[in-house]
C-alpha cells in the first residue's frame, strides 16, 4: 500500500512538473478553474505573509523607537518592488534570454493579455504570484541591518537588488536558466528566496556596521506578542507560498501541504526543547524562530521529500539555526539584527542540500530524474547554493558600497539614539 502511494505521488509529480511548471510556450493549454482559483488565493496568502506577517514578526523584535521604521521598510519595499516587478523584473526572470538573464520582451508586461496562459492558469495570475515572491525576498533582507540604515538608501538598494540579483537568480532556477537546466531542485524558493536574501542581509550587516551600543546596551525585543502574531501569519501565508508553487491543484499540492505543516511543527518543537535543555527555559521567541527556520528549510524540499523526511528536516533546521543565532553569531560578532542569515540563509542551505538526499525514493521521496544518483543530485544542489551565495553576496556588496559612496547608508549616531521613527518618519509607534 505504501509502495503504491509512493508510485502515485511520483506519477502526480512527474505529470504536473512536466506539464505545469515547464509549459510556458504551450499555446494549446486551457485554463483550469480550480487551479486558477487556488492560485489567486495562494497569491493573496503570500501578501499576508509579508504585510502584516513579516512586518510584525520583525517589528516586535526591534526596540519600540524603531517599530515604525521596520513596518515602513517592509510595507514600502513590498509596494515598490511590486511595481518594479511589472516594469522589468518579471521579464528578466521569466522570458527567454541567456543562462543568467531573461530578455526584456515582456517588460511593462508587453504582450500579456487576459488570454495568456501559463500551465493551466492565466499568465496574469502566474505573474502576480511570482510578484509576491519578488517583493517579499528583499523585504526579508531588511532584518539584517534593521535599526540603523537610512530609509532612502534601503529603497535604492532593494530596487537595484531586485533587478540585478533576484530576477537573474529566479531566471537561473525557474525561468529557463542554467541551474534549472542543470537539474538543481528548488520547489518554492530555498535558493531564490531564502539563501539569496540571507546572504545579502549578512553582507549588509557587515558593510553598514554594528548598531551603536551593540553588546554594550540592552536591546531586547519590544513586543514579542507582535512577533508571535507575525510568525503565525507567516506560517499561514507560507501555505500559499509553498503549495502555490506547484501552480496547480493536484497530488503534489497535497504533499507540499502536509510537508510544510510537519517540518514547521517539528522545528518549533526542536528549537523549544534544544533551548530548554541548553539555556534553561523554553521561550516564545524561540518557538517563533523555530517555526520560521522550519518553514525556510522545507521551502526547497516540500514537493520532493516525504512527510517523515519533512519532520527530520524540520528538527535539523531548528538545531542549526538555534546554534547560528546564539553560538555562531556571538563567536563571529556580526550584528545581523534579526538573524536573517542565521535563520533564512543557513536553514535555506540545509533545506536545499537535504532535498538532494531526502528526495531519494528509498527515503520515501519522489525519486531522482533518470540516471541521477544521490551524490550527483547533492552536487547539483550545492552548485545552486554556491552560485546563489556568490552572486547575491558579491553583487549585494558592490551595491551597498556604491550606495554608501553616493548617498550614505547609515543614519547619524544621534538619529540612532533618538530612534528612526521620530527622525526619519516624524511619528511614534506608541503614545506614552
Amino acid at each position, binding site marked *: 500500500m505504501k509502495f503504491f502511494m509512493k508510485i502515485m505521488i511520483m506519477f502526480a509529480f512527474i505529470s504536473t512538473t512536466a506539464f505545469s511548471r515547464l509549459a510556458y510556450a504551450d499555446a494549446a493549454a486551457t485554463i483550469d478553474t480550480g487551479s486558477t482559483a487556488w492560485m489567486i488565493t495562494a497569491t493573496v496568502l503570500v501578501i499576508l505573509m509579508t504585510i502584516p506577517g513579516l512586518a510584525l514578526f520583525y517589528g516586535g*523584535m526591534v526596540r519600540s523607537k524603531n517599530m515604525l521604521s521596520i513596518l515602513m521598510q517592509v510595507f514600502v519595499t513590498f509596494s515598490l518592488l511590486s511595481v518594479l516587478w511589472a516594469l522589468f523584473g518579471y521579464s528578466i526572470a521569466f522570458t527567454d534570454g541567456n543562462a543568467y538573464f531573461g530578455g526584456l520582451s515582456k517588460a511593462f508586461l508587453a504582450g500579456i493579455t487576459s488570454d495568456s496562459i501559463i500551465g493551466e492558469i492565466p499568465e496574469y495570475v502566474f505573474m502576480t504570484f511570482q510578484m509576491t515572491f519578488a517583493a517579499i525576498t528583499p523585504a526579508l533582507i531588511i532584518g539584517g541591518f534593521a535599526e540603523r540604515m537610512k530609509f532612502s538608501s534601503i529603497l535604492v538598494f532593494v530596487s537595484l537588488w531586485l533587478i540585478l540579483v533576484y530576477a537573474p537568480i529566479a531566471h537561473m532556477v525557474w525561468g529557463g536558466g542554467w541551474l534549472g537546466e542543470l537539474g538543481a531542485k528548488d520547489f518554492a524558493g530555498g535558493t531564490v528566496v531564502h539563501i539569496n536574501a540571507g546572504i545579502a542581509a549578512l553582507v549588509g550587516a557587515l558593510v553598514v556596521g554594528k548598531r551603536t551600543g551593540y553588546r554594550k546596551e*540592552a*536591546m*531586547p*525585543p519590544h513586543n514579542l506578542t507582535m512577533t508571535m502574531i507575525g510568525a503565525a501569519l507567516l506560517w499561514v501565508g507560507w501555505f500559499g507560498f509553498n503549495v502555490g508553487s506547484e501552480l496547480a491543484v493536484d497530488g503534489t499540492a497535497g504533499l507540499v501541504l502536509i510537508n510544510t505543516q510537519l517540518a514547521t511543527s517539528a522545528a518549533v518543537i526542536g528549537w523549544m526543547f534544544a533551548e530548554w535543555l541548553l*539555556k*534553561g*527555559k523554553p*521561550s516564545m*521567541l*524561540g518557538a517563533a*524562530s523555530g517555526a520560521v527556520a522550519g518553514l525556510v528549510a522545507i521551502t526547497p524540499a516540500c514537493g520532493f521529500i516525504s512527510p517523515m523526511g519533512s519532520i527530520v528536516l524540520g528538527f535539523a533546521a531548528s538545531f542549526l539555526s538555534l546554534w547560528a*543565532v*546564539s*553560538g555562531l*553569531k*556571538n563567536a563571529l560578532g556580526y550584528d545581523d539584527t534579526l*538573524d536573517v542569515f542565521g535563520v533564512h540563509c543557513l536553514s535555506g542551505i540545509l533545506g536545499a542540500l537535504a532535498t538532494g538526499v531526502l528526495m531519494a525514493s528509498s527515503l520515501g521521496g519522489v525519486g531522482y530524474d533518470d540516471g541521477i544518483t544521490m551524490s550527483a543530485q547533492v552536487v547539483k544542489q550545492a552548485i545552486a547554493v554556491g552560485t546563489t551565495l556568490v552572486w547575491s553576496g558579491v553583487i549585494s556588496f558592490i551595491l551597498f558600497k556604491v550606495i554608501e559612496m553616493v548617498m550614505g547608508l547609515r543614519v547619524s549616531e544621534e538619529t540612532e539614539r533618538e530612534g528612526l521613527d521620530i527622525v526619519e518618519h516624524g511619528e511614534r509607534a506608541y503614545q506614552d
Partner: protein
Amino acid sequence: MKQVVAIIKPFKLDDVRESLSEIGIQGLTVSEVKGFGRQKGHTELYRGAEYVVDFLPKLKLDIAIDDDMVDQVIEAIIKGANTGKIGDGKIFVYPLEQVVRIRTGETGSEAL
C-alpha cells in the same frame, strides 16, 4: 507632620490600601518605580543575547500624616505588604514642614 514613603511589591497595592483605609487614612499617591535592594534581578535571553535585569518594578506610596499616626501607618503598611519573601520593600519616614490644600488654602494638619 510626617511623610511616609513606602516601596512595595506592585501586587500588594490593594492590600495596603485596604489596611490603610481601616485606620482612617484618606489619601495617598502611588508612582510606578524601578529599583533594586537585596532581591536579585533576573536574566532575560533573546536568541543569543542575554540581558541581566537588575531593576525590578515596584510601587512607591507617598502618605502625609500627623505625627501621632506614624506607628499605626507603618503597622498597616507592613500588614498589607508583607509576604515574608525577599523583595517586600521598605518604609521611610521624613519630617514634613508644610501641607497646603490648593482648593481652600488650608494649611498644616487641617489640609491632611
